């Protein structure tokens, strides 16, 4: 099972995305996001990016999702819609899970499948040690590159975050 852990985590990732895309009440959508965040962290960890995976837990789950949970709790309705209380949500959820199951079985059965790109069964999700990165962790090198070659990217992302705050202030001011 451990060799195919990335495949399993990816499947759980897609199912949790389906769980909040089928539009239950935001509280339950937040639950799907938590599962997706945790599993996504696992996928990143399997590729050797330990720092970034733990960043997902800390900042995304521990920061943004907590704020999201609190605001949803403030704005919630008396009878929130879960996946089983509304036939439309249940139908969308079942459709999504069924599609994912069929895709997963198709991938596992055949030897070589081509959906958008060719891959050879479940074997392509196993992490091999390809690429000669030597003694350096690629992830740490990537983060270092962000602050050396990627200065413009940091400037643009920082500016976009500032604009995000200003836009939200402007939109919710309303008078």
């Amino acid at each position, binding site marked *: 099972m451990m060799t195919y852990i990335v495949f399993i985590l990816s499947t759980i990732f897609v199912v949790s995305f389906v769980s909040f895309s089928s539009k239950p009440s935001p509280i339950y959508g937040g639950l799907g996001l938590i599962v997706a965040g945790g599993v996504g962290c696992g996928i990143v960890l399997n590729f050797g990016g330990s720092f970034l995976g733990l960043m997902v837990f800390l900042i995304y789950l521990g920061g943004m999702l907590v704020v999201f949970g609190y605001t949803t709790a403030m704005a919630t309705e008396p009878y929130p819609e879960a996946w089983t209380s509304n036939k439309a949500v249940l139908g969308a959820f079942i459709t999504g899970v069924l599609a994912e199951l069929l895709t997963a079985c198709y991938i596992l059965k055949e030897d070589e499948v081509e959906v*958008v*790109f060719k891959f050879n069964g479940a074997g392509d999700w196993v992490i091999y040690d390809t690429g000669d990165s030597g003694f350096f962790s690629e992830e740490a090198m990537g983060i270092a590159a962000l602050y050396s070659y990627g200065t413009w*990217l940091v400037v*643009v*992302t920082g*500016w*976009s975050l500032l*604009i*995000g705050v*200003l*836009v939200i202030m*402007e*939109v919710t001011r*309303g*008078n």
Partner: protein
Amino acid sequence: MKPPILTIIMLTVISGTMIVMTTSHWLMVWIGFEMNLLAIIPILMKKYNPRAMEAATKYFLTQATASMLLMMGIIINLLHSGQWTVSKDLNPMASIMMTTALAVKLGLAPFHFWVPEVTQGISLSSGLILLTWQKIAPLSILYQISPTINPNLLLAMAIMSVMIGGWGGLNQTQLRKIMAYSSIAHMGWMTAIMMYSPTMMILNLTIYIIMTLTTFMLLMYNSTTTTLSLSQTWNKTPLITSLILLLMMSLGGLPPLSGFIPKWMIIQELTKNEMIMMPTLLAMTALLNLYFYMRLTYTTALTMFPSNNCMKMKWRFKCTKKMIFLPPLIVMSTMLLPLTPMLSVLD
């Protein structure tokens, strides 16, 4: 909106488009589009009524979906070519996804449904920015990937856009919706020529932006948003009445006005590439556009539209809006035809 905030937000809208136009890294293209989208939302919501909120929400949802499709195309390109450079060798699958995504951003048929609804719900100045500046960024990316675009997809969308822009605008009396359908039709003309001569697309875009800018400024001068109130301009500012006449004829593509330049050049380029049915179809459906422009001139400049008796006192109220760029824009949108031979500098 307070002036410092408005300045910063407009700066971000402009720099978002500049980033898309000048970058060589696909990720920065996506970032530029998202910056642009995020910053233009408060501009669309300048008036705090539910209609403007609804329009801004619709715009945000459609453009965000298009950005996601674009990202998917970028990642597929990365997978197949192994690099992030914006170049003209795209994987066909990535090219199709990017073309579809950019078509949603532009409002090409069959993804045109958001254009009239969003344009109608926002103020005239926001509609101006939406229909002119927001078209530049997607068209610049289409320009860069134009050698690898699937011709069937693009030409089908182009012909559908011109048809839907023509037929959709026929039943409208609200001026913002008319301008929205006009935008859809012009985008159709621009994408039709993209396969054969992207330079003509730039020419069409330039002249379209000048004409739409002028139209919106004339409408903003009197704050008119319906045909009925436009038909009263003979009373308020008679000069604008004759200018609307010239401008509508130019938008419809009649010689000897500037609006004829792009249509002439496009039909010429298409026939040089041995496509006969398509320019015929485009020219014939452009007549539908001309019909509703003519209806506007008919009610505004050529007849005295029915109104009640106190309307004839409107000239007593002087309009105080300063539109200093209006005269040069009007000259540019009606009198550029003799300068067409200057296109030879592009060779």
